[in-house]
C-alpha cells in the first residue's frame, strides 16, 4: 500500500520537500550510510517504518538535515550521537542518546530505561515520561522531561543537568557527583547522598532560559534542586556507617 507522504509530512510537522527513506530492507549500517548521503541535500530526512528496531541512527555526526524517525524506535537510538539532530515521532527504547557528545534528540513519546546514559554533551527532550535511570552516569549535556522520570534517575551523574516537569520515582539523584536535577511535582524519594538545596536566582534564570529554548512551558508547581551532598566521595572512617546503610 502506498503511503500519502504529504499527509505523513503534515502529521509529523515536516516540510513538503522532506526526503523519505524506508527503513524496511535496510540494515542499520546501510540505513546510516543512506542517512548521511541524503542529509547532504535536504533539510529534513524522514525515516519511514522504524518499527521499533534497535540501533537506529547510531554514531551520526553533525549534518545539514534533521533526521525524523516516523514511529517508535528500539534500543540505543541516537547512541554516540556527535552532532546530529534527531526527532523520534513515537517512543524510544533503552539508552536513547547514550554516549552522545553533541547534538539534539527530541522524543515525542516516552523513553524506556537509561535515556542519555553516560552522555557528555548535547540535549535530549522527552515529551512523554522518562523511564527508570534517566540520565544515569551522564557527564554533561541536558535532559528535559515533560512528564515524570522513573526510579534511580540521575544515578551517578557526574555532570550535566536533568530538568523534570512532572515528578520522579524512587531514589532520585542517587550517588551523584556534580550532576544537577531540577524537578517539579512529586518525588518518590531521594537517593543515597542526594540532598535538596534551595534554588537561587541564577538557577531560576537558567531554567527560564532553557525552557524557552526547548519550547517547554514553566510548570505549575515550584522546582526543587537536587544535588549530591558529597558524603560518599571520601573514605573517611566516619563514613563507614553511611556506606553500610546503603
Amino acid at each position, binding site marked *: 500500500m502506498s503511503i500519502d507522504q504529504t499527509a505523513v509530512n503534515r502529521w509529523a510537522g515536516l516540510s513538503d520537500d522532506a526526503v523519505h527513506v524506508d527503513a524496511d530492507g535496510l540494515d*542499520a*549500517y546501510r540505513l*546510516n550510510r543512506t542517512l548521511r548521503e541524503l542529509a547532504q541535500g535536504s533539510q529534513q530526512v524522514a525515516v519511514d517504518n522504524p518499527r521499533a528496531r*534497535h*540501533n537506529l541512527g*547510531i*554514531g551520526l*555526526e553533525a549534518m545539514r538535515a534533521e533526521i525524523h524517525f516516523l514511529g517508535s524506535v*528500539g*534500543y*540505543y537510538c541516537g*547512541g*554516540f*550521537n*556527535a552532532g546530529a539532530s534527531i526527532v523520534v515521532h513515537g517512543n524510544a527504547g*533503552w*539508552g536513547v542518546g*547514550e*554516549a*552522545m*557528545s553533541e547534538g539534539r534528540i527530541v522524543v515525542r513519546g516516552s523513553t524506556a*530505561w*537509561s535515556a542519555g*546514559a*553516560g552522555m*557528555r554533551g548535547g540535549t535530549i527532550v522527552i515529551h512523554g515520561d522518562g523511564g527508570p*535511570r534517566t540520565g*544515569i*552516569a551522564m*557527564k*554533561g549535556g541536558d535532559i528535559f522531561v515533560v512528564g515524570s522520570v522513573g526510579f534511580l534517575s540521575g*544515578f*551517578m551523574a*557526574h*555532570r550535566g543537568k536533568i530538568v523534570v516537569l512532572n515528578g520522579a520515582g524512587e531514589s532520585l539523584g542517587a550517588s551523584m*557527583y*556534580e550532576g544537577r536535577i531540577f524537578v517539579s511535582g512529586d518525588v518518590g524519594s531521594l537517593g543515597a547522598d542526594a540532598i535538596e538545596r534551595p534554588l537561587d536566582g541564577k538557577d531560576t534564570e537558567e531554567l527560564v532560559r532553557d525552557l524557552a529554548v526547548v519550547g517547554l512551558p514553566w510548570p505549575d508547581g515550584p522546582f526543587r534542586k537536587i544535588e549530591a551532598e*558529597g558524603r*560518599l*566521595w*571520601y*573514605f573517611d*572512617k*566516619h*563514613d*563507614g556507617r553511611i*556506606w553500610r546503610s546503603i
Partner: protein
Amino acid sequence: MSSEGREPETDRTRAADALSMQESPIWDRYTIEEIQSKAELGRYRITGFSLHRRIPRLDDLVFLPAAMTRLPLEGYRESCETKTVLGARHGCAKPLELSVPVYITSMSFGALSWNAKAALGRAASAIGTCTCTGEGGMLTEEREESSLLVYQMTPSRYMLDLEHLRQADAIEVAMGQGAKPGTGGLLPGAKVADRVAEMRTLPKNIDQRSAVRHPDFLGADDMEVKLEELRIATDNQVPIFVKMPATRVREDVKIAAKIGADVIVVDGMEGATGASPELLLDHTGVPTIAAVAAAREALEELGLYGQVDLVVSGGIRSGADAAKALALGADAVAIGTAALIALNCNAPVYAEDYAQLGTASGFCHHCHTGRCPVGVATQDPELVERLDVEKAAERVENFINAMVMEITLLAKACGKGDVHGLEPEDLRALTLEAAAMARVPLAGTDWVPGQDGRF
C-alpha cells in the same frame, strides 16, 4: 624457692616459654594486625597488587617435550610462528594482527601515570602488539605511542564518545576484572589529580568508586544489542572484545560468545589491581588455571572454539606461564603486573621512599597510596618524572621479547612450528588440584580427576 629468689626451671615452665612465642594458626600476627587495623579505620582495608595466599597455579603444570613419540624442532635453528590474529570472527575490516601472543592488558590512566602509559604503548608498538586503555579514558600520549590500542568501555563510561571510539583499534566491553569481580574500579583521591579528574569528569581528589553495572544494559539480551551498536558506531572496522572476571566461567563465556563477542578475555583471580578492598583479592574468583580450561570447554561445547578468540590474563609472569595458558586453550595472554615490574615497579631504587610507605622494594603493593617510588602508579609529577619513558619502554620491550623466546623455546621442544599448536596433551599436572582444574592428567598417570566419571 632458690637462694636467688627465682623459681627453679621445670619442664612445665620451659613449655610455657615456648608456647608464649608460638603463633596461633587461627589468630596469627596478620589476622591480629588486620583486626586492629579495621578497628582503627572503621572499614575494610584497601590495597593494591594481587592476592596474599597460595592457590593452584600454572606453576603446578609441566610440559612434556618431544622425545621418542614426537619430534622436537631445533631450538636455535628452526622457526616457530608467533603471529596472533584476534577478532576476525565477524569479518571486521581490521582484526588485530599481533606479532606475538602476548599483549598489555587494560590498566587505567589514573591507576598508572602518564609516563607509565606512554612507555607501555611504546613498548607494545615496538613489539608489534597491542595495549589497552583501561577505564580512565583514552590518554593522548598513550594513543600516540600505541600502534594498536584497545579501548575499554567500562560501566563508568569515562570519556566515552564517538570521537574516542573511532580512534580505537578494538573495543573491549569490560564486565569486571579478576582482582575484584562484582565490583567497580577504585581510585583513591590521591590519584584523582587534575588531569585524571578532568578525563573522568569527577571532582578533584575524591575517592572514586566506579560503577559496577553498565548503565544501559543489564542482561545478555540487552548486551547483544549493545555489541551490535558498537559495531555500527565503528562501521565494523574493529573487533569487539568482552572482558570478564573468572567466576562462572563456563556459563559466562558461553553467553559472551553467543551474543557476538569476537574476543573473550577471561581474567583469573590472580589478576592485580591498583586498589581494591583487600578481601576481594583473596576471597573472590577462580584461579587462572581453572579459568582457561573452563573457557576452552565452553567454546568447544558451542562449536565456537577457534572462531571466538580466547585471551587469558591474571598472574601471567613468564613465558612458561604464557605457554601453559596457550596450551590449555588461550589464543593470547595479556600481562599487567609483569609489564609494570618490567617498567620499574618494585625496583631496588629510592629505598627511603619505600621505607616511608612502610615497605621495601620487592614487597611493595602500595599502588593505592599514589606514592609509588618509581613513578609507575602515581599522579605526583615529581615521582612520575622518575620514570624515563624511553628506558622504561625498552625494558618492557626486552621483557616481552624474553617471554616470547621462552614460549617458542617450549613450543619447539614440544615439536610445534607455531605457538598456537601447543595443546593440553603437552601438559601434565604436578598436583591433584591442578589436574582437576586444568583437566590435564596427573603426572605419571592418565588420570584427570572427574573426567569420564573417574574420581
